[in-house]
């Protein structure tokens, strides 16, 4: 590595740290998806179908998540409606 590399590196963001940030996000996402029951994706599809009867939405505008808080399962449903 020459002295010129040293100046160049300090300007651009190090790619390894970009990799780490991206991985932390995708892995966290992957783990929540792993832990949810198998029926969630199908239920999400059905919910989208029902809402679509009334409002024009896309699949990714509905977010379904099952969380467990102190022995109590909470189904969280987030729908972004178009304006």
């Amino acid at each position, binding site marked *: *590595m020459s002295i010129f*590399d040293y100046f160049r*590196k300090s300007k651009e963001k*190090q*790619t*390894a*740290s970009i*990799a*780490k940030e*991206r*991985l*932390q996000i*995708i*892995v966290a996402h*992957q*783990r929540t998806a*792993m832990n949810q029951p198998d029926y969630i994706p199908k239920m999400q599809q059905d919910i989208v179908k029902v809402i679509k009867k009334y409002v024009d939405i896309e699949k990714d505008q509905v977010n379904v998540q099952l969380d467990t808080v102190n022995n109590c399962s909470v189904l969280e449903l987030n729908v972004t409606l178009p304006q």
Partner: protein
Amino acid sequence: MAKIIVVTSGKGGVGKTTSSAAIGTGLAMNNKKTVIIDFDVGLRNLDLIMGCERRVVYDFVNVISGEATLNQALIKDKRLKNLFILPASQTRDKDALTKKGVEKVLNDLSKDFDFIICDSPAGIEKGAQMALYFADEAIVVTNPEVSSVRDSDRILGILQSKSRRAENGGDPVVEHLLITRYDPERVIAGEMLSISDVEDILAIPLLGVIPESEAVLKASNQGTPVILDEKTKAGLAYSDAVMRLLGSNVDYRFITVEKKGFFKRMMGAGR
């Protein structure tokens, strides 16, 4: 009772077979009677890496289907008396591996081996699931690179939910992280994920770090497990990993940049 260890990764090409061959050989060098099983039905390669491809007569699937006995199918290593290889079938498809059949073979092997190393195929389909199902311990082989780390996390999820230990609710599978193709110079330059980056993301204990090394290709060219080449960094790093697997506390080597002497720099010799 043998200890069953799966070598797995999710992603292909990260060094599962190289690591299975090296670690299995290393265990045999430490007087542990070891068998390495190739679970990659249809794409067998362990035989080539171990240098016994011309001695394959019967295979794992033949044993499961009762066409051969275990003793007929096991290939004894020519270098080490404690080392055996059970090759995969090259002609059958992955459905030939049944849970019952695999369990029977593992139970039979368990009677007179100390270690059973299961060399998993890539992916998360049946072959990979079969390789990890009966495992007591898992060595997750990971390159310091985004797709490999992500896939390792996936396979960890499968180990924690779909292995026999997970299904029976006993002790979980003991997990080990093996980082391969590590290049400290690129880590210093900020171009490669560091050991601690990978550890942070996967959150499992480290077993070994194998440096990127020309010796690995040279070893596979000749059908010699790289661990037998005790002059190479990769070989020594595998020996260290085997000692840790056996419970020793060994310092990590080859994980920092070596200061190159004037002569080495002039000759451009790096590895």
